[in-house]
């Protein structure tokens, strides 16, 4: 290589170096920019259990892993947002004795990855304390101004969260409970952070089976303005969150409800395109469903049925399933419909294939 070649190579290297530096600085500036933040989205993806399912070709899919990939992809495409992704994995050991970390945390701001680290979630199984600490450390302080409010979303992906007890929820740590009470405590913990400043989450998604019940919504409505959940089975292909990519620049009060309806409809259509079982997605407006939930007769009837279903105290904590609340004697269909947007499709086969309506509420009980 001659002298000219040497200088040419040096020139090219220096150009590429400056280009890299420029990109890096740009990225850094984007990561640090916080005054533009309009959305904070927390994904909690539970993977400590059996989350295997198969598509129509028979290929294996791990529901939690697929959802983490989707969450990352959503986060990368969201400007003006902070996205926190927590993935709870099963307990594993290296060489039989050395425990591996069972939690993975990703933090994106303005579409850029700011932090990704593994952590031990074991001590935090009760109220997601460690996850809340990650949030506290990373979430930016953004002052809410008239006409500009940061929207906070919490998305939970996993199996049905039991209303009480919760032992056995985490397959690797069956002795450590996780129930709706624990989730409510966790949400309270997140909300107490100075970044959220005691206000409610705008939206809580429970992408789980059987959590669209009067009991669950009563316990969670102090912490979220809108709650989306399924009162029936929910296939592991889950309530899709891809529609978050279409978050508008601003979501004022009325628009939030409209946007969440579109989110639910999009998820419903996706489920409908790849599942043949029953699909029921309910969007509950916490303020409007209050009256219905305060119906004393219904609460007593639910309580009695719950005791009847779960039997003795030694019975495992996992629920015995749900049925449409319209079967309950004290259930008023008109009252129940207030404050709910329902997306329902009967199964293609089975005893409910001709059941064309659903109340949007699940009550304790089994199908037979």
């Amino acid at each position, binding site marked *: 290589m001659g002298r000219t070649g040497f200088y040419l190579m040096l020139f090219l290297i220096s150009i590429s170096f400056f280009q890299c530096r420029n990109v890096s600085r740009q990225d850094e500036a984007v990561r640090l920019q916080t005054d533009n933040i309009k959305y904070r989205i927390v994904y909690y993806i539970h993977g*400590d*259990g*059996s*989350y*295997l*399912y*198969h598509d*129509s070709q*028979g290929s294996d899919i791990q529901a939690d892993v697929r959802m983490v990939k989707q969450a990352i992809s959503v986060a990368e495409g969201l400007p003006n947002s902070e996205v926190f992704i927590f993935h709870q994995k*099963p*307990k*594993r*050991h*290296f*060489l*039989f004795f050395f*425990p*591996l970390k069972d939690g993975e945390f990703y933090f994106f701001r303005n579409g850029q990855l700011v932090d990704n680290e593994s952590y031990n979630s074991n001590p935090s199984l009760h109220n997601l304390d460690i996850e809340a600490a990650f949030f506290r450390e990373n979430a930016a302080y953004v002052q809410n101004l008239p006409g500009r409010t940061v929207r906070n979303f919490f998305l939970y992906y996993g*199996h*049905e969260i039991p209303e009480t007890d919760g032992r*056995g929820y985490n*397959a*690797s740590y069956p002795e450590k409970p996780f129930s709706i009470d624990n989730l409510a405590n966790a949400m309270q913990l997140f909300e107490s952070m100075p970044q959220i400043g005691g206000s409610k989450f705008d939206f809580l998604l429970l992408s789980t*089976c*059987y959590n669209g019940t009067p009991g669950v919504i009563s316990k969670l409505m102090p912490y979220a303005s809108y709650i989306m959940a399924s009162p029936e*089975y*929910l*296939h*592991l292909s889950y309530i899709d969150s891809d529609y978050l990519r279409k978050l508008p620049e601003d979501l004022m009060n009325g628009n939030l409800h409209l946007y969440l309806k579109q989110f639910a409809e999009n998820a419903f259509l996706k489920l409908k395109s790849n*599942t*043949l*079982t029953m699909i029921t997605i309910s969007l509950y407006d916490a303020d409007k469903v209050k009256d219905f939930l305060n119906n004393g007769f219904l609460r007593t009837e639910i309580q009695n049925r719950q005791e009847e279903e779960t039997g003795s105290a*030694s*019975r*495992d904590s*996992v*629920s*015995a*399933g749900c049925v449409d609340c319209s079967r309950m004697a004290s259930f008023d269909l008109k009252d129940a419909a207030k404050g709910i947007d329902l997306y329902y499709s009967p*199964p*293609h*086969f*089975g*005893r409910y294939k001709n059941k064309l309506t659903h109340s949007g509420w699940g009550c304790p009980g*089994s199908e*037979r």
Partner: protein
Amino acid sequence: MIYIIKEEYMFRIRLVLALLLAFILSQATFAGSSESAKVQNKFKEYFNSISVKVKEAATPAEKREILNNSFEKFNKALTKIISMKGIPAGDIKALNSLKASVTDKYNELNGLHGYTKVQDNQLNNFSDYVKQDMEQADQWVTISVTTLLLIVILVILLVR
């Protein structure tokens, strides 16, 4: 000559030892994973394999036979376990619920007990429905690992 043979022999021993070590390491990395989740996955794989077989079968009669055999074998195994001594009451309740769910599917496939018989051109979809319904069946979660293992042995290993 002897030297070359010895070298080759030693190489093979080393190769076998390396493979063995790799196997142990790969197993050891995942040691401690939840047994109940692994066993539940076995059932999901079982129903998935039935759905795959149904789709591969050439005629509706073959498809029906695959589905009917799998339902019968599954319920036979469940009946056997339910009648065993020492099975916890909670497990028996969940097993009965599973059995009823599989019986419903058998009845629907064959048009029994008030069900409309699944049409021939719907058999592939029906096998997918069965797979999806069993994948999300909450009863799996309530059954103890020991009982689940018994079902695996009876259904998946012995009656295949």
